[in-house]
């Protein structure tokens, strides 16, 4: 009887641990409370969600310098910020790549890129990669649209920016714009999750 009890306890612990590990590896889902971060921007500022008091949400985009898919979207990311920052949804770009693997994505090169392209949004360096892991980002670009309710940020959309990376003129679904427009109108987000091809995040070797 005692043995059975021990066995069941062990099993329960294993199941709990397994579940916990799975959650950790998985990151955030739509509807989850967003995790805060405190990261250095290419502008020199330290940025976190908690210090953004006068916003309605944020368009978090994991992106980087080197990835051609990120580059293809640079102008569209700038346009998103210009359109939606005045509405309370600024873009916050986060570069999660290990600069020792991709020197193009170093902090200094982020500063250069931000200046060359006159990024109007904050471009943060996730040097520890903790934020990318906490969110469950896997590729660049990878969007996590957040919306604020009772002073807390929640995930409203996860996925791609739109449905055509290479040919902006042939885009027929602007996933992020449609989602932000719905949030602004107080409506539920119709398409809250999409998948897109992107560069894998270059993780540090353990």
């Amino acid at each position, binding site marked *: 009887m005692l043995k059975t009890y021990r066995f069941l306890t062990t099993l329960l612990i294993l199941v709990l641990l397994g579940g916990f590990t799975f959650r950790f590896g998985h990151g955030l889902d739509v509807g989850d409370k967003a995790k805060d971060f405190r990261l250095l921007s290419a502008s020199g500022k330290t940025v976190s969600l908690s210090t953004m008091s006068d916003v309605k949400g944020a368009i978090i985009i994991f992106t980087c310098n080197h990835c051609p898919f990120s580059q293809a979207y640079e102008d569209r990311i700038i346009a998103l910020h210009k359109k939606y920052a005045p509405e309370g949804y600024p873009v916050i770009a986060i570069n999660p790549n290990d600069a020792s693997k991709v020197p193009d994505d170093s902090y200094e090169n982020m500063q250069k890129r931000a200046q060359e392209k006159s990024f109007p949004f904050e471009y943060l360096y996730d040097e520890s990669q903790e934020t990318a892991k906490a969110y469950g980002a896997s590729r660049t670009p990878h969007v996590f649209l957040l919306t604020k309710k009772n002073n807390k940020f929640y995930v409203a959309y996860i996925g791609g920016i739109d449905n055509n990376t290479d040919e902006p003129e042939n885009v027929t679904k602007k996933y992020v714009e449609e989602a932000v427009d719905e949030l602004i109108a107080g409506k539920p987000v119709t398409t809250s999750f999409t*998948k897109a091809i992107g560069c894998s995040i270059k993780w540090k070797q353990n």
Partner: protein
Amino acid sequence: MIIYGQSDEPSPEIIKWDALQSILNTHSDSVYVINFWATWCKPCVAELPSFDSLSVAYRNKPVAVILVSLDFKRQYADKLIPFIQKNNISARVLLLDEPEYDLWINKIDKSWSGAIPATLIFHKPSKYHHFYEEEFTYSSLIQALPPHLKN
């Protein structure tokens, strides 16, 4: 449709989803190793020789190595073709021209986030189906083959 590792075609085909789907729905008893890559993706390019070596080493076995390029269609002539020639890629290369990624990524595998490199290995008769959103070396690639091919 019978597809073996080596192709006599001089240049890669540009395909739409239907063509890739018919490969996924094959009734062939070959093992399919389908790698998703692009010429601009550094870890993809780094692992490509392993896939090419596999296609050469298993050329007399029922193994089909297919390298599905996600390069943009406009880069076909000035990026993809020169890359294949320069690197002497002998495995079959297809350029998948389906820019609305959200429509088909889940059909390759639900666990795929969309990051590349990514590889699907399947063998219909033994219901072997494994998907990897990770990088391979030659030895880890051999390890990922179904048991009946490892000897």
